[in-house]
């Protein structure tokens, strides 16, 4: 589900709201949450989960591909923890897991990692 699909579903559940209004509200929600995290403010949505910004101090790292030393600057990183209700609903669900076929194309690709061995591909599929 993408953000625009989320807007569609919410708009269908709230027929008295024009879709345009739902879109504005959804965008405002995520903008508001982004600003809170920018200010290092914790966000807690009961039943859903919480978002926090955690501080990572500067450190010396290495480029794992070349072994070259690089300095990793101090930074803030967002984290999410699912709330109890959502965690239990996700874990207790008997719905089959949706196949992950898309390419997360809204993300900037990180440097490729060495290929991990395929996890139990269909027997006989992987040759060599």
């Amino acid at each position, binding site marked *: 589900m993408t*953000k625009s699909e989320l807007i569609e579903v919410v708009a269908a559940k709230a027929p008295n709201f024009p879709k345009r209004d739902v879109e504005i509200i959804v965008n405002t*929600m995520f903008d508001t949450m982004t600003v809170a995290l920018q200010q290092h403010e914790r966000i807690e949505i009961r039943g859903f989960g919480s978002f926090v910004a955690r501080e990572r101090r500067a450190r010396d790292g290495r480029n794992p591909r070349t072994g070259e030393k690089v300095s990793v600057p101090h930074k803030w990183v967002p984290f999410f923890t699912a709330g109890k209700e959502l965690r239990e609903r*996700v874990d207790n669900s008997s719905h089959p*897991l949706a196949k992950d076929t898309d390419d997360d194309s809204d993300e900037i690709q990180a440097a490729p990692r060495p290929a991990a061995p395929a996890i139990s591909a269909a027997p006989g599929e992987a040759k060599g």
Partner: protein
Amino acid sequence: MTKAEIIKAVNEKIGFSKRDSAEIVELVFDTMKETLERGQKIKISGFGNFVVREKRPRIGRNPQTGEEIEISARRVLTFKPSQVLKSALNG
């Protein structure tokens, strides 16, 4: 920040009534929960992706007693922040 404050922001920033703001904000989180419960991922561009993952059973250990116990297979929810959100935190 709580859900009430998100509702307040929707009310103050864009002028929807408190009642309307609350209705839609609740529906958004409810819909996200239903979607994730169905094992589907949610991609909010500019914010991040919520992804349900299957964990295989594994042997864990009670750190107090050292006793080995099987941790059953389970489904967990992970959040991968978007590059946009990560950059916003370090602007």
